[in-house]
């Protein structure tokens, strides 16, 4: 028993709250400015020291100065206080300083609530499996801290067990809510500019070096799962943006495609169709990287006049799309004049030697011209390398007649330049080529290192035909992947370089686990929710029916938890139960045993008040006393249990 004012915080609970601060804020050290991480560490150590020495907390004005100073520094560092990153920095700052003015239980609660908020902010940066596990552990710690605050001192293990039990019981609610809570696809309002920072992928222009920097990353661009067989590796061209405007340095998506009337391209499939589902990582652009060329589109997507598939909005979250594609096709045999015009345009007066070369080919049929360029790449001294020499103003000339070293962007660029100069409509297509099947779950993984650029030529009667000039130089790039194509001694891009077999197996497993995680946990968006709910027998789930099911299931779960935690009945000794039954039966007949009355004393009183029950009651009382206090046996128990049935019926009690 203790008497204490309820408001002040128990000093022994302070380390719990410091642990809360550390667990929730320390993973942010990775992206917080170093000075803030240092300030955080110093503040926690300071508080710990004050607690250890039982010193008073620093005065308010001192903390106010610290907060103002740090806020000014954050504003200076991030140029704003409103962005996502500066918001996280501010939260971390408050988390660092709040324990320094923590006097009451209410302050401690604010620390824990701040902790819950900080937990959420970790997901801005990572939603991977390790983050999830770390946050689950932190959640247990925060719950334990609340239990410590409200339940007083207990052994550590008991507190943690109780917190774990609470979280375990909360899990069904989480699952129900996760499945059934009507999902809204964000954002609800304009996001700050840094909301989608650091997402890599193809960009809408191909400047020198833009693809090679991408190729060095082992990050996954998307995963695909084919319903039937997977096409040949050499057919795996995943179409990204079509770059048809050239300024002598950079290839861009021209404004033309957007300006054209919405007219679906005409694709005639000539072979097998492949159905597949792609899970595309967020890349902040609209294109959906379908296998060239898509014949059936997911809902809400459209096919641009230049054949790439576009989503309505830029892809800000990992998303699933189902396509069908044909790898053998005629596309846009009747092409609009505007697009053909755009596919011939070149900036004037650059690359004179390349133009002169193309002029010599002008009389030939277009397909022969393309073949001529390819055979030049194949037969002359061209090399595939990720570390090409820098090129100057006449980039194509320098490449074709000077350095002759480069990778896909150089070859595609030179090829298209030559064809356009020779009067053949041609354009650069950026995207990914190839991919690697993960044997664990059968998904084809396409990484940023598979980024590629190739060319497309419009031939009368055939439409757009793909030419990959890189394949002429380094056929192994297309057939086996970039590692095989690179010359000896050149650094290998990112994770692709790991070649040890066991490492590869490990990576496959890890990536398959991640894929499952991505699809079931992270990729659970409104669309996937509808898919899954219709599989569970809710054919057309709207928010009303979802809320109804949600409420009903939560009610059931609450009931189950209530029953689970219901106090277990103490096992009553059978003798005591029989005696109680007998006493209850007697009470109905007008003699109530008082709580303090022993069996024999009660029997004596019954003998006075109800002589006709005296013999039976005294027999029952003697049996019970023997069973409880002496050496009773099972026979006496039987007698006692029988006594209640031997009582005279109630209507005769007045007799």
């Amino acid at each position, binding site marked *: *028993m*203790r*008497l*204490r004012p*309820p408001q002040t915080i128990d000093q022994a609970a302070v380390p719990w709250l410091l642990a809360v601060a550390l667990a929730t804020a320390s993973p942010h050290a990775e992206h917080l400015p170093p000075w803030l991480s240092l300030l955080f560490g110093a503040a926690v150590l300071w508080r710990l020291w004050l607690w250890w020495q039982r010193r008073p907390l620093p005065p308010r004005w001192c903390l106010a100065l610290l907060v103002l100073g740090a806020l000014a520094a954050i504003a200076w560092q991030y140029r704003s206080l409103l962005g*996502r990153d500066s918001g996280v920095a501010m939260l971390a700052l408050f988390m660092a300083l709040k324990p320094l003015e923590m006097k009451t239980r*209410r302050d401690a*609660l*604010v620390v824990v*609530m701040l902790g*819950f*908020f900080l937990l*959420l902010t970790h*997901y*801005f940066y990572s*939603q991977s499996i390790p*983050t*999830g596990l770390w946050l689950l552990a932190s*959640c247990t710690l925060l*719950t334990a801290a*609340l*239990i410590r605050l*409200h*339940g*007083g001192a*207990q052994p550590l293990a008991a507190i943690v067990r*109780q917190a774990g039990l*609470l*979280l375990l*019981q*909360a*899990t*069904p*609610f*989480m699952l129900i*809510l996760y499945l059934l*809570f009507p*999902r*809204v*696809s*964000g*954002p*609800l309002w304009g*996001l700050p500019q840094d909301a989608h920072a650091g997402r890599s992928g193809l960009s809408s222009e191909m400047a020198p070096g833009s693809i090679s920097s991408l190729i060095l990353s082992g990050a996954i661009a998307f995963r695909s799962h084919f319903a039937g067989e997977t096409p040949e590796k050499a057919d795996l061209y995943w179409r990204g943006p079509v770059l048809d405007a050239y300024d002598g340095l950079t290839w861009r998506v021209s404004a033309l495609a957007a300006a054209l009337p919405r007219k679906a391209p005409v694709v005639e499939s000539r072979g097998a169709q492949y159905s597949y589902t792609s899970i595309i990582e967020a890349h902040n652009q609209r294109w959906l990287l379908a296998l060239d060329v898509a014949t059936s589109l997911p809902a809400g997507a459209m096919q641009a006049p230049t054949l790439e598939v576009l989503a309505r909005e830029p892809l*800000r*979250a990992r998303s699933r799309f189902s396509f069908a594609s044909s790898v053998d096709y005629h596309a846009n045999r009747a092409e609009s004049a505007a697009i053909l015009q755009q596919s011939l345009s070149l900036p004037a007066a650059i690359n004179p030697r390349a133009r002169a070369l193309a002029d010599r080919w002008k009389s030939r049929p277009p397909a022969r011209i393309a073949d001529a360029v390819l055979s030049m790449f194949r037969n002359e001294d061209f090399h595939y390398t990720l570390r090409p020499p820098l090129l100057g103003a006449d980039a194509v000339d320098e490449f074709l007649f000077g350095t002759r070293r480069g990778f896909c962007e150089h070859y595609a660029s030179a090829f298209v330049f030559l064809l356009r100069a020779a009067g053949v409509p041609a354009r650069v297509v950026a995207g990914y080529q190839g991919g690697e099947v993960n044997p664990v779950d059968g998904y084809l993984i396409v990484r940023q290192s598979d980024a590629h650029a190739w060319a497309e030529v419009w031939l009368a009667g055939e439409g757009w035909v793909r030419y990959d000039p890189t394949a002429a130089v380094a056929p192994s790039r297309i057939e086996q992947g970039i590692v095989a194509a690179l010359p000896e001694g050149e650094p290998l891009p990112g994770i692709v370089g790991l070649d040890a077999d066991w490492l590869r197996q490990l990576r496959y497993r890890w990536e398959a686990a991640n894929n499952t995680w991505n699809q079931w*946990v*992270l990729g*659970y*968006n409104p669309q996937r929710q509808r898919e899954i709910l219709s599989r569970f027998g809710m054919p057309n789930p709207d928010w009303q029916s979802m809320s109804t099911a949600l409420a009903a299931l*939560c009610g059931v779960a*609450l009931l189950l*938890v*209530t029953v689970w*935690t*219901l*106090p*277990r009945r*103490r096992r009553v000794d059978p003798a005591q139960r029989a005696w109680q039954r007998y006493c209850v039966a007697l009470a109905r007949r007008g003699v109530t045993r008082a*709580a303090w009355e022993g069996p024999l004393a009660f029997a004596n009183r019954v003998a006075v008040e109800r002589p006709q029950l005296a013999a039976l009651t005294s027999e029952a009382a003697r049996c019970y006393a023997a069973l409880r206090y002496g050496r009773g046996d099972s026979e006496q128990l039987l007698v006692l249990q029988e006594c209640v049935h031997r009582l005279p019926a109630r209507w005769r009690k007045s007799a």
Partner: protein
Amino acid sequence: MRRLPSLHQWLFGRQRDEQWPLVLGQRRIFIVPTAAGMLFALVLLVMLIGAINYDLSLGHALIFLLAGLGLVAMVHSFHNLFGLRLTPGRADATFVGDLARFPLLLENPRRQQRRALELSFSAQPMVAVDLPAEGSVTVALPCLAQRRGRLDPGRVTLATRYPLGLFRAWSYIHPSWSCIVYPKPLQTPLPPASPANTADHRQGDSGQEDFAGLRPRQLSDPTRHIAWKAVARRSDEQALLVKQFAGGASDELWLDWSLTPPDRGSEDRLSILAGWIMLADEGQACYGLRLPGQQIAPATGSAQRASCLQALALYETGETRDAA
């Protein structure tokens, strides 16, 4: 609004509890979110908006887990009280200005412990107690004695915020509790004693001056020492009781209302009398008490002290003192 009092009556009840031990059932337990619970809900709402806005799937999972945690905490707070058995005890008399302590036995029939139970009378200090699994604890509920007389502490609020502080579950218990509050003793010198003039009194006859209690009669005891009143009260006993006397010769001391300064208020005069009783009791004197309209015969010992103080406590309160 006029219906609200009856709602309050229906919800919380006014009658005193008579059946003991009282087992807390769901009808008696109330539960509402605390300010911290409201803050928690608000934080979750803001987090949910953030998670939707930034499309954080795992954020949704975290928020839903915490929402589930809140619901589960509600059930646990309720169960922290549910099934608790309570039995009130008798409170000892106290003086004005002191804390009266009302004992309440809490029994936990359950295999899990119950933590952080907070008990208090309204506007009185709070007692926090933890109950071990299948264990019991007696708490002494403090209630400040502010007025002389019989103290009715009102109902007990038994509340808990365990485990997470998001919900407060509480129950009201209203035993027929009371405690005698004596006037605050005022230290003043004793009035002079007057020589005893009862027929029984014989100077120096040790063992017969100061009343020290009762014991069963032995054949050698004189009949005039038989405590007839006590015998009459306890008709079930066969043996006669005799008064026992102890101590040396001392004068008889009458603590008389008329000896207190008449210019003081009657509460002060009662306090002065109480101070005299305390002094006389300390000196193991044989003393009697005279109040307007009542008189307590001279005797010694703690029983005499209690009955005299009780007479002061209940003086002019419209209550007669306990027959004890």
